[in-house]
């Protein structure tokens, strides 16, 4: 993974079992594709949680916004 700087990371929960998870996913993609395409990046949450050093470095390199669907807050955690 190439880490660019000067961007904001957005990680959403993408929760498959709840409609709210899909809303978090769609909201995230809207920011990435339409609202702030040049200023934002994302990463699949399970890859981030279970990935290697590059993936874990994501939140250290980018100021990151978590977009969660429910009170379990998987993305924030």
């Amino acid at each position, binding site marked *: 993974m190439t880490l660019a700087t000067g961007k904001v990371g957005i990680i959403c*929960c*993408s929760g*498959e*079992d709840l409609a709210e998870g899909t809303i978090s996913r*769609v909201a995230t*993609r809207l920011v990435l*594709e339409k609202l702030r395409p040049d200023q934002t990046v994302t990463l*699949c949450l399970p890859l981030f949680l*279970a990935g290697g050093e590059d993936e874990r470095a994501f939140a250290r390199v980018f100021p990151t916004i978590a977009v969660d669907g429910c009170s379990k807050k998987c993305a924030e955690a």
Partner: protein
Amino acid sequence: MENHKVVVVPCSGIGKSLGTVGRVATYKIIERMKPEKTRTVCLALLTMGDADALKLVRKNPCIAVDGCPAQCSKKNIEASIGKLAHNVVVTDFLRKNRSLKPEGVIELNDQGDKLAEIIAKAVSEKVDEILHEEKCE
């Protein structure tokens, strides 16, 4: 024997359309093709070690539906000591259906939806096989 459901777990991939293909395929299975025999669980919840999610994948046979060769769903089910009964990867189906070019993450194009339908049918057949084998045991 307890009536088990097969837990179909897509990968949550958000960077490319492949993750959406797996996600759409999963919804086709749990909502339309095999609603009585399947359910899903949030992969992030499983990865976080949520007690209910862990219990679910340890008690029921699971099918991982991954978008790319990183296979986050498969790996997380295995790491959770879940009952991984089968796994599919969208890129494998893409190789066999080269005329279909999935595009879009928020919303799949028609070709992506067709690919999801092919995957959903294949996984649904596997659901029947898995539950049949469990019944015979």
